[in-house]
Structures are given as structure tokens and as C-alpha cells.
């Protein structure tokens, strides 16, 4: 069974390399600078030159950058890489996982032999130092993305949208703020073992609850930093990976589901995200796997309450039960990277950082975070207010 259908002539795509500079602040770099760095790092692990690539799958360069059309061709020119497939994908926070899907599809079809998927973002300075009128074009672009009913209310960030859902979630299930803060503390503990993570100093629940309330009920330390960063993943056919002796992570299952609503699923239960559940079900069914067979998971979770709701949407625990499950020390194999809250969150690269974490786990390269012989992993990404989701199941190969 192939991830894209039961046709024998399709080949199975395998992740064979990953590269990413540490997540953090890169005020002097453009997204393309960071993209090139990640791509060279990934190819170096295979001892291959850029020219070995024949497919380049990019993610839009960020949210607040005004970028001229045909950036993929400009990046190809900069790198000096002619290809047989060249594209850029944009669908909010899920973009990089959807670009990964496009690469896997081309490899599965035999259209491309060695595909690179690259996502990069470097626009932190826009949000770090306040906003001045020189930024007006970019500010208006970000605002317009919220569409005709939310943009006029002045939105410039997704935090308030997630805060609306979080407030309702805490209210409906009677969840105490400290229980949400506990997740941030545990993610920080995991990040301490990840050299790529932006935030690695230990945290306490009091630190989290004492941090600024960004949008009630979300505290600053319950929100992912708007990081700079990049990640590149190299995908080839299972046959080529075997031939070259490259261990990898094979894509065995894929699922995605998208609500029609932009950001807020108006009129729906703000604590339930069936799109995440549907994408998970489809990916697991296509992989022939159950949740219990997953050894390691990377979940998007841009805000602590959202991450808890995602656990529930994926049926990893019962509705309203995620915080208690975290407190009991369950779900310890989720977001070993430190998650978005502590690994850091450059959204246009994030899903590839997640794929990279699972790749490193499945190939024994996760350093201090390494689990004992994991065989199956899962990556989840989302856009909007979690009302669009993509899920990939990856399994050890070779």
C-alpha cells in the first residue's frame, strides 16, 4: 500500500536527510539565506552537491514579507540548480507539510529522483521592536489575511483568535490555568536536550503564570515565539535510498482536512477540531497503523491550550482530559523537540522541523533525545484556528 493509493507502480518516498540551523534570531539574514544554509546542511549529510537535486519544493517566504512573484526561480538561480520540478506552496502554518507532500507525490510517481523541501522565515524584527509606519505595507498585508469579517476588527496576529478558543476550552472543561502552564514547563524540559531549540532555560509553573498575559487567557510563556529559522528535508525513492545505503523515514500515511472557514470556524464548537481528527484517522488508516503503534509524535501546538486541544482532537486522550494526562506524565513521546513553545516557531519552516525531528528519531540521530529504537512516528501541522490540518505517518526505512 502506497501512501497515495494502492498502485504497484508508485514507489515509496523516503526522507533521507534533514538540515536546520538552530531556531532563533537571524536579524541579518533573509529567508533565502537561511533556506540555503538549511539545504546545504541537509545535502552535506549525504555528501551530495546542490546539483544532485532535481526537484525543489519551497514554502512561501513568510507572512509579513512582501515578496515579488517567481521567488522559486530566483532561488534556483541563486543556487545554480536546474530542476524537473519547481514550486512554492502557501497554506498558512501547514504550508511546509503540504510542500513536503508535493515532493513525496512527485517522488512516488517517479517524476523526481532527489527532491528538496525547504521552508524558511526571517521576519522576527518586525514584531520584536514594535511597529512603525515604515512597516505599513507589511502590516496591512498581515491584517488583510484575516479576511473581510476579522480584518476590519484590526487583527494583526493569530494570538487573539487562539485566545478565544482557549478561553472557551478552559471554561467548558473547568481547566485551571496552572494545568495549562504545566505543558509549557514540560516542553521546556525536553528542549533542554535539543541543541536546535531556541528556549532551553528551565521554567516553573509560576514563571509561566507570572509572564505577561498576551491575550487572555494566553500567557507569553504559553505562546510560541515568532522565531527566525529554516529547515530542509531531502526525499527520494525507497529504491534509491536502499541502493545508496541511506537510512531514512518512509512516508507510509498521509491525511489532510480543511474547513471552509478562514481562521475562525464560525458557529462551531471552539474546543473541538474534527479536521485534525480526520487528517489523523486518514493518515493512520493509510499507513495501517494505530495510535498505540506510534513511538514518537511531533504536533504543531503554537499555543499551550491549542496543543492540549490538538491532543484531544487526535484522540490521544479524552475531550478535556489533555492537561490531566500531561500532569500524569503521559504523552511523554509527543514533541520531544521542545515543541513550538520551546524549540521555537518559524511557521514556514515548522512542519519541516517536525519532520526532521521524527527523521532523526527513526534513524537514531536524535542525540540526548533519542528514544530506544522507534519504528513509527507522526507529524501534524495546521493552519487557521486549527480548522485545517495535515498529518504524515513516517516509518523507519533501511
Amino acid at each position, binding site marked *: 500500500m502506497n501512501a497515495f493509493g494502492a498502485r504497484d507502480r508508485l514507489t515509496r518516498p523516503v526522507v533521507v536527510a534533514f538540515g536546520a540551523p538552530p531556531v532563533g534570531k537571524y536579524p541579518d539574514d533573509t529567508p533565502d539565506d537561511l533556506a540555503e544554509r538549511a539545504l546545504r546542511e541537509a545535502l552535506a549529510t549525504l555528501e551530495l552537491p546542490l546539483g544532485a537535486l532535481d526537484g525543489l519544493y519551497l514554502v512561501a517566504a513568510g507572512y509579513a514579507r512582501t515578496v515579488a512573484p517567481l521567488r522559486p526561480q530566483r532561488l534556483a538561480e541563486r543556487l545554480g540548480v536546474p530542476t524537473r520540478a519547481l514550486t512554492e506552496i502557501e497554506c498558512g502554518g501547514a504550508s511546509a507539510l503540504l510542500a513536503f507532500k508535493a515532493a513525496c507525490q512527485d517522488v512516488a510517481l517517479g517524476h523526481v529522483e532527489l527532491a528538496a523541501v525547504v521552508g524558511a522565515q526571517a521576519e522576527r524584527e518586525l514584531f520584536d521592536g514594535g511597529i512603525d509606519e515604515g512597516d505599513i505595507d507589511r502590516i496591512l498585508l498581515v491584517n488583510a489575511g484575516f479576511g473581510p469579517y476579522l480584518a476590519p*476588527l484590526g*487583527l494583526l496576529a493569530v494570538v487573539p483568535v487562539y485566545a478565544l478558543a482557549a478561553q472557551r476550552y478552559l471554561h467548558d472543561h473547568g481547566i485551571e490555568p496552572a494545568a495549562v502552564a504545566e505543558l509549557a514547563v514540560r516542553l521546556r524540559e525536553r528542549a533542554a536536550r535539543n541543541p536546535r531549540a531556541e528556549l532551553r532555560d528551565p521554567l516553573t509553573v509560576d514563571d509561566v503564570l507570572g509572564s505577561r498575559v498576551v*491575550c487572555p487567557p494566553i500567557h507569553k510563556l504559553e505562546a510560541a515565539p515568532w522565531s527566525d529559522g529554516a529547515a530542509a528535508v531531502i526525499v527520494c525513492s525507497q529504491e534509491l535510498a536502499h541502493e545508496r545505503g541511506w537510512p531514512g523515514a518512509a512516508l507510509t500515511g498521509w491525511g489532510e482536512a480543511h474547513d471552509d472557514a478562514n481562521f475562525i470556524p*464560525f458557529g462551531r464548537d471552539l474546543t473541538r477540531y474534527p479536521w485534525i481528527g480526520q487528517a489523523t484517522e486518514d493518515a493512520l488508516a493509510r499507513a495501517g497503523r494505530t495510535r498505540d503503534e506510534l513511538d514518537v509524535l511531533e504536533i504543531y501546538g503554537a499555543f499551550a491550550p491549542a496543543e492540549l486541544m490538538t491532543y484531544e482532537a487526535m484522540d490521544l486522550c479524552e475531550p478535556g482530559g489533555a492537561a490531566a494526562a500531561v500532569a500524569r506524565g503521559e504523552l511523554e513521546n509527543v514533541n520531544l523537540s521542545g515543541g513550538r513553545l520551546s524549540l521555537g516557531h518559524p511557521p514556514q519552516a515548522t512542519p519541516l522541523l517536525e519532520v526532521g525531528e521524527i527523521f532523526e528519531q527513526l534513524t537514531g540521530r536524535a542525540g540526548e533525545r533519542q528514544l530506544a529504537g522507534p519504528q513509527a512516528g507522526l507529524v501534524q501541522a495546521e493552519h487557521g484556528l486549527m480548522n485545517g490540518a495535515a498529518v504524515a505517518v513516517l516509518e523507519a526505512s533501511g
Partner: protein
Amino acid sequence: MTIAPGKHLDRDRDAMAREFYRRLAETGTAATTRCARCGTTRFPPRSRCADCDAPTEWIELPRTGRLQAFTTQERALRYGAPTVLVLVELGDAVLPGVVDGPIEALTIGDEVELAAERVEELGLSLCRFRPAARP
């Protein structure tokens, strides 16, 4: 912040959104569409029902409703804290808007009343709500 944007939204506003805002400005009432065949009401308004492809009809929503959720915006072009961003259940639809703070005075489920507010820099009226008179 003193940036006064609005026109940037015009070119992307579709006919249904323009009609929503025209009605809000002229009648002070929020409206959305209902499928003429299956009767499903959805917000945002759409010209045809996605499920049965039948044309829709405009319906006026009640002017009072209940708070589904609320928060404040730390950074915004307008309506930053202490103004409260809300989702309000109005009949069969949920709409976004704002209500005067302080946020501490509000509870999920509170009854609120629509009082459309003209925002000159946008050339639009928006959904501002105020707490309904308590019985």
C-alpha cells in the same frame, strides 16, 4: 498606533461581504444567508448553498445574542485592549465583533445587544455590542 488603514481591504471584499456591511450600516442589523432549499443558515454569507447549490436568501439576525468567547488584542490596528474582541451567538449564526471592557465584567453566556458602530477610516459600520439591560 496612528495608521488608519481601510482601503487595503476594499479590493478583496467580495459582493456578499459588501452586502453584509451595507445592511449593517443601513439597518443597524447583522444579516447572513440561508439556503432557500435546505434552510441551512451559515455565516459568512454566500451566494449559493455549498451543499445543494441552491441560491440563498438574506435573513436578518436577532440584535441580541450571547457571548460565545472573548479576549483582548495586545497589538492591533484598532480595537486593542481594553476593548474586548468577542464572538457572539446571534440566532443561528456566530459573528465576530467588539464590546466595551473591562473584560473582568464579562462572562461566557452573557446577553449582549448589537449597536453597529461607524468607523470612518474604513467607510464601514462594524459589530459593536453592549451588555443587554439586565432584567
